[in-house]
Structures are given as C-alpha cells and as structure tokens.
C-alpha cells in the first residue's frame, strides 16, 4: 500500500487500537502547520480566518459522513472525552450498558450514575437485553473491540425510544469500517475517534442531536464557550460551542479532514478486503486448533483468540516477525470475566492489510508454541 509507508515492512494488525495514517494526512498537517498555523475562531487576519475555515470545513465533512448537521458536531480529543461529556453532563440517571463495553463507555457511567448491565452470551454471540427493565439512557457499543460482535443498534435504540430513554452509541470501533447514519439509527449521541479511521490521535467527535443539547452541561469551562462574562457571572454560549472550551488540536483537525476524504474514497474496497481477511484468519485459526471468541453473528474485522502460550509471550515473539498484535484485556475487563480469561491475543484489520500479514501471523504463532512449549 503506497499510501501507508509504515506497513511496507510491518505486519500491523492492531488497527482496533489505532490505524496507520496515509501520506495525504501527513501532507495536510504539514501544509497547515507551515502555512496557516493560527488559533481558530479568534484572529481576524488571513491565516486566523483560514484556521477557522479548516475547522468548520472539517465539521461539515464529519456531519455529512454521519448524516448529521454541523451544529450537532462537537470536536473532542477522542471517544473517551466525548462519552465523558455526556456521562458527566446529564443529571444522575439509570444507564443500561452491555457487558461488551470498552472501559471508555463503562467507567464514566459507573462513576456518576446507576448502571444496569445486559450480559453477553459467548455461546450465541449475543447480548441479552431485557426491555422490561426501567432505564433512562441506553449506552451501547456498536461493535465490540474484543470479539468484533456488531450489535443490532438500530433495533435496540427503537426499543429504548419506546421507553422514552436517551441513546448513546460508542462508534469508535465501527467508524473506520462502515458508514453510519445517525438519523437512521435514531441515536441522541454518537462518539468516535479520528485515529481509528486513518486520522490523527488527539481528535474525536461527539454528535449531539439538537433537541437534547440543553440536557447536557459542559464538561470543561473557559475560553470560547461563553456568550458574556462579568465579574459576577458568566452566560454560556448556546449550542455546541458550549462544549468546545479552549484551543483545539487544529493541525489534527486538518489531518482529520484529509483522512475523511481518504476514507470516503476507499471505504468500500477496504471493508471488503477486511471481511475477506477475517474469514481467512478464522479458517487458519481453525486449522491450528486455536480458540477464538464470538464470530457467530454479524461481526467486524476484530478477532480475539487464546492459545496454550500467554498472550504477552505470543506478542513478544510475533514482534520478531514484525507482526504487531495486541495482547491483554483490551480495556474490557467485564467482558474478560464473561469469557473466563484474563487476557487474549487480538488481531484487527484495516484496509491496507494483506493475506501475507495473516500468513506471517500464523507462522509466528507456530513459532511461539515451539519456543515456549518445546
């Protein structure tokens, strides 16, 4: 893949953690930094205006990408901050979560609200919801970062809405693989990170539907989020501006802009490639009699597995083959408890991966077994 020089030599299979960045993004960030660096929404001079333009153009592109309006797009530093804005900004409520959640969509709710959990059943690869239960907010992942399981989010939100609950979707894992339409989903909040869709780290998005913006108090207070400040009191700005205190990562947003263009051009080919590679990997794991989790229902290109070698040792040995996989609990300890393991090995694909990456992985796994178990 000529657009991603780093993967020429590397079998990078940790894309659920972060994706690699195309040259087009590097150029955009460089161009911005060398030619236009200035604070956005402030300076009334050419490069200041240009910075503002870049931020607002990116906001429009994000809005188009998920079928929202630009007035519903808040820039954050990532998914975690986006979810924290909602979890800390809503009044104390009863939250319905799933056992598949990443800690980012679990810990903030657990800290400040009452939570109830829909359990994951590994045998059926399904989350068992009970919509007889009372709750105020459904906060669910779209796709698990461990098993790759894709939840029937639209259907879940429809049921939540019948109970007049709010709905938040953690789209961090799905956003780089599948187009999302917030109107079709019917969610009130959607959170994701640029760096899982070929963009830079340090930039994320919170979609907040217009009708519910007033229900959420800002998380961070300071410059740029106010209407008027006097010695006695501060009147906050209206709309999304309230959620964007302080200076943003504008170079990152310029990079994100290029990444969105890149993904728009490539998402169909990329997701087809990822699907084929996932099938190929599962076949190879079966051949090696290596146990993997989930993948019995609709799933994305993320596969967790365990073998008779500790995941850390597997990962260290694979590194010698230039194969990068993830080893650990993947910030999903409640799910690990359900799977009955403390850690797994995880492979996650992006558009630039190839069959050769999988072949190298399998070769490395054989070697790990040979080295450790003899």
């Amino acid at each position, binding site marked *: 893949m000529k657009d991603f020089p780093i993967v020429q030599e590397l079998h990078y299979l940790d894309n659920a953690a972060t994706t690699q960045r195309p040259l087009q993004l590097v150029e955009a960030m460089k161009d911005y930094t060398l030619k236009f660096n200035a604070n956005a929404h402030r300076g009334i001079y050419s490069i200041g205006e240009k910075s503002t333009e870049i931020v607002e153009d990116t906001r429009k592109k994000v809005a188009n990408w998920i079928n929202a309006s630009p007035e519903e797009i808040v820039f954050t530093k990532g998914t975690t901050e986006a979810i924290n804005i909602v979890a800390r900004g809503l009044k104390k409520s009863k939250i319905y979560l799933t056992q598949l959640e990443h800690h980012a969509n679990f810990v903030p709710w657990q800290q400040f609200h009452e939570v109830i959990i829909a359990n994951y059943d590994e045998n059926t690869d399904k989350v068992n919801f009970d919509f007889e239960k009372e709750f105020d907010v459904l906060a669910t992942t779209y796709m698990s970062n461990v098993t790759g399981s894709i939840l029937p989010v639209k259907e879940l939100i429809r049921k939540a809405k019948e109970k007049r609950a709010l709905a938040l979707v953690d789209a961090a894992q799905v956003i780089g693989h599948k187009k999302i339409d917030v109107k079709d989903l019917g969610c009130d909040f959607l959170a994701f990170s640029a760096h899982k869709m070929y963009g830079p780290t340090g930039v994320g998005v919170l979609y907040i539907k217009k009708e519910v913006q007033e229900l959420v108090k800002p998380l961070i207070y300071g410059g740029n989020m106010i209407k008027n400040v006097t010695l006695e009191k501060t009147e906050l700005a209206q709309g999304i501006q309230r959620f964007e205190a302080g200076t943003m990562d504008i170079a990152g947003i310029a990079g994100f802009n290029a990444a969105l263009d890149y993904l728009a051009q490539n998402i169909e080919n990329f997701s087809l490639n990822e699907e084929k590679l996932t099938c190929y990997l599962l076949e190879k794991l079966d051949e090696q009699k290596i146990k993997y989790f989930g993948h019995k229902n609709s799933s994305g290109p993320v596969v967790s597995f365990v073998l008779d070698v*500790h995941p*850390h040792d597997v990962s*260290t*040995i694979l590194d010698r083959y230039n194969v990068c996989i993830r*080893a650990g*609990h993947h910030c999903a300890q409640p799910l690990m408890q359900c799977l009955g393991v403390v850690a797994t090995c995880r492979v996650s694909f992006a558009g630039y991966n190839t069959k050769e990456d999988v072949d190298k992985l399998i070769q490395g796994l054989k070697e790990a077994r040979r*080295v*450790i178990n003899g």
Partner: protein
Amino acid sequence: MDELYREVLLEHYKNPQNSGKLINPDIVQKDSNPLCGDVVEFYLRLKEGKVTEVSFEGKGCVICMATSDILSEKFKGMSLDEIQSMQREEVLDILGLNLTHTRVKCAMLPLVAVKKGIIEFKSKGEKK
C-alpha cells in the same frame, strides 16, 4: 532469536523449583498486573529476621513466572531490609535481559508483591 526465551528461563517457567504454598507463612502477599492479568502470590517464612523459605503460586507469562522462581531462590537468606532495598536494575541484572517498557512490568511484579508483603508485615509488628 531467543535471548528472551533462552533455555534457562524456560526451564524456570516449565519446572519451577519454588512453586506451591507454605503452611503458616509469616508473609503472604498477592499482587497482579492489570495490564495482562498476571497474578502471583508469595509465601515467606522468617527466622531471626532473615528469610528462610520462599514459595509462590501464580499464573502469567514466561517472564513473570520465571522471575518469580529465580527471585524466590535469591530471597532465601536475605533480610527484609535487603529485599526492600532491591531495585529494578538488580532484578534485570539477575535476569540478564534487556526488556521493553511493558515487559519490565512483567519482571517486576514478583518483587513488587514481596515488598508490599514486607511493608504489611512490618506495620503489623509496629502495631503489636
């Protein structure tokens, strides 16, 4: 390749000499590494301020388990103060390994656990 997985370490991993529980130990301490879920529990018996017997139980990677076994042997005959003054460099020297940042944590878990146990043991003594 395998400096990291050379025979001597794998031998400690596969056939640890100091695994198991002690009956009536003076110090028992469990600790885990949240990153990878490695767990160790150490048992120490003392006589006249020195460690006479050490054993451990645990589940983890080669580095963590082999280090547990090697350090168990090393602790025997040491005073509690001597163990408390042991630093990370000393552990890495004993292992003879050049570990990456994340894997250093695997190697340090056994010493971290035992040091915690010693602090607990000493604070109990003070209360008495």
